[in-house]
């Protein structure tokens, strides 16, 4: 939707200013990835070089952190897809005692400050004497990844007519066939979008990870540590640049995928 009248100049300036304020720091990170000065951030940069890309590639700690982050994000997303979809199906498709409560409880982890989730998970782990590992990080991330998938899936389930499931069963499809041939194709884009968002969120999560990680460092945690003790500082910027790309692309893709799903049919009259 757009109007024909043109925006007045002051409004344009204000909008440009707002965007500049939001995006300039990110651009700075990109610029400093190529600076020749390695101890401190100096403006303007004394010179530009590509050597930090090479340095970054040869640092094993970067790779370790990256792979841990990818692994955690992938596993959390898979768990979230399974549990989030099932919860959404139950909440959207059937009525049972406590349904509203469950839908609130599922959303709670994302409404709660991450620090609360982190502290409570940490105390739970130590109470149960669970040693910190990749899996404790995964558990922490899954709490909010489920919410993302759930929200996407529940909205799609509500827009998908229940009569489609009736129709499939009526035509002879058993439960598995109904799921794979009718339900899944209708919710697939929502799951893909939810999964991508969940992956992106998990990938740059810091707070919950701090409490559940033990000795391991995920990529965001590694970056935080690098900032505290300066050594080859632009390496952090190179990694930051990579993180921006890795997170922005799925989010953009998710945006385009859900936009097309607006007219999910089946309830046409």
């Amino acid at each position, binding site marked *: 939707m757009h109007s024909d009248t043109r925006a007045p100049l002051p409004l344009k300036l204000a909008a440009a200013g707002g965007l500049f304020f939001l995006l300039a720091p990110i651009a700075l990170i990109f610029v400093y990835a190529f600076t020749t000065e390695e101890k401190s951030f100096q403006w303007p940069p004394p010179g530009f070089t590509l050597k930090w890309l090479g340095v970054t590639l040869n640092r094993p700690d970067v790779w370790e952190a990256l792979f841990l982050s990818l692994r955690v994000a992938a596993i959390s997303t898979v768990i979230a897809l399974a549990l989030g979809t099932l919860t959404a199906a139950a909440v959207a498709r059937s009525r049972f005692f406590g349904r509203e409560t469950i839908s609130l409880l599922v959303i709670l982890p994302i409404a709660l400050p991450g620090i609360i989730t982190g502290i409570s998970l940490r105390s739970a782990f130590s109470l149960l004497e669970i040693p910190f590992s990749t899996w404790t990080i995964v558990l922490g991330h899954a709490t909010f990844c489920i919410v993302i998938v759930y929200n996407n899936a529940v909205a799609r389930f509500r827009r998908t007519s229940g009569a489609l499931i009736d129709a499939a069963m009526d035509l002879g499809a058993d439960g598995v066939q109904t799921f794979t*041939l009718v339900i899944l194709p209708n919710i697939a884009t929502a799951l893909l979008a939810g999964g991508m968002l969940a992956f992106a969120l998990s990938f740059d999560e810091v707070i919950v990870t701090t409490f559940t990680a033990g000795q391991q460092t995920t990529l965001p945690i590694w970056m935080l540590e690098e900032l505290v003790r300066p050594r080859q500082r632009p390496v952090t910027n190179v990694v930051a640049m990579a993180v921006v790309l890795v997170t922005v692309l799925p989010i953009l893709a998710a945006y385009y995928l859900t936009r097309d799903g607006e007219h999910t049919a*089946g309830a046409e009259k």
Partner: protein
Amino acid sequence: MDEVDLAIRDGEFFTMLGPSGSGKTTCLRLIAGFEQPTAGHIEIFGERADGVPPYLRNVNTVFQSYALFPHMNVLDNVAFGLRVKGVSRVERLKAAEEALAMVELAGYGSRRAGELSGGQRQRVALARALINKPRVLLLDEPLGALDLKLREQMQEELRKLQRALGLTFVFVTHDQEEALSMADRVAVFAEGRIQQVGSAEDIYRRPASRFVADFVGSSNVIPADFAGVGAAGQWASLRPEDITLDPAGREAVVTGRYFHGRVVKLALDVGGQALTALVAPRDDLPDAGRATRIAWDPARVHLMERGS
């Protein structure tokens, strides 16, 4: 839903008629297997069907909302029933083409459901349900979303199809005219119970209760002694079209006159009893507020078994 005792005959066009919330759709969903009875049982061709899931019943449904699969084209929609049975792709698409031709939609196979008109979607839903060769076809207000012209055309086609295939059709509707014109037999539902089962003419001419008389063709439900057919305390049904203007008849005051095209509806007051009459349009019909005289043939008055 309350106790419902119903036997539908093989090969008949059976209509379940009732206002929304009367239990007719629930009854249909019980036959289809989407819902299970809490008590009692269902038999389909002599076999116990309660507890049998919908996909194991030899019964197919045409849904009110059509419920075409939005992610498939028309041909795949129609072929779905054969696909889940494991029929090969070539074979099932051929059968689907034939089914589409039967509902006069040959050549529409590659379209999406969203690109079709309401009437066309209706036909696709019909073809999709019939491809499984069910012995019973359930239709849940299938014509409700169509405009009048199209609805009348589809009514005729459904009737023809049912006769040609020799199938049992169970048709749910809240439209009494539709029910009367299509069905071999009609069951009138209200408040989760069956009020009456019978042929269309039976239901119309001899309504068993005030509800049936009023719901089917909005009859005048009047005290029997007033109608001149029975004792006080009994109720009688007098069809509005059976009341005639007659100079030798009873005195009545016209309280309203409504032109409906083919007929004129007169609201009448006969000594405190409100009556509705349907008469042929004429130039000399009395205006609202005027007195007139009316009569009816006592043989056309039906004395009802139940007052409620």
